[in-house]
């Protein structure tokens, strides 16, 4: 089974990367971009086909490792 985990900075947290990218896009003349925030995506392959179980596993993975809940939030999505 395939899943996707998105880990992004909490909205109140400074995102230096996003800020730098915004600036770069502006100076490259890409118009109409109001803001950019950068996060991480994990494409995960899981054993088995039980979606609930997979979700529980991924939640565990996020809490333990993938996300730093001090500053980040995460979202789990199932692809296809």
């Amino acid at each position, binding site marked *: 089974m395939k899943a996707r985990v998105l880990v992004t900075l909490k909205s109140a947290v400074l995102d*230096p*990367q996003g800020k*730098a*990218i915004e600036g*770069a896009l502006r*100076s*490259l003349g890409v118009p109409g971009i109001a803001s950019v925030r*950068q996060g991480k995506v994990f494409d995960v392959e899981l054993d088995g086909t039980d979606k609930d179980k997979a979700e529980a596993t991924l939640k565990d993975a996020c809490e333990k490792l993938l996300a730093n809940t001090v500053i980040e939030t995460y979202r789990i999505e199932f692809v296809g």
Partner: protein
Amino acid sequence: MKAAVILFPGSNREGDVAHAIRQITGVEPAVVWHADTELPAGTDLVVLPGGFSYGDYLRCGAIAARAAIMDAVRAHAARGGLVLGVCNGFQILCESGLLPGVLVRNARLRFICREALLKVERNDTPFTSRYARGAVVRFPVAHGEGNYAADADTLKRLEGEGRVVFRYVMPDGRRDDTQVLNGAANSIAGIVSEKLNVLGLMPHPENQVDPLLGSTDGRALFESMVDALERV
């Protein structure tokens, strides 16, 4: 030798390379701001120094590679002018298309600062003529993303054309692709452009020009460039 060191926001080894150039040539290099569009008239050598241009955000060297001055650097390279990119400079050269491939995170995912042993694969380039072919030299590395990667065709082409100039080797001088400190493909530490006038390398020759700081293995690289320019 008239050298120009390009200063990007976040560059931080520009002083080190300027120091090396001054020590070896006696001439202070010009410092050129990233937002400028022209190199000083008569520039022989352009240096893209080490550092964390734009914080290394997004990808190392990605934002700097698109800076205004880079068109002038490309034109200089196209004219056959010398371009030296060290560490972040190498990353910028790859991102700007002046050299093939890309530098990704070290295989062990950690920043690494230590002395590396390098084999000089050829000494018929403007950067290595003062070294003996096959010599093993010691330059420090200081990077988190020095793991050279390219697709199989590109690697084959680079090897076929003999464009790998510096390669990481073991203390006994042997190459061992499974033990490379940063995981680089084919133990690649530095490559040149087709016309041999653009060199990108991860290790820092500029930090090794002063006996007080360990060794002077880096001097010959700068001296080679001086020779090359005198020959012109």
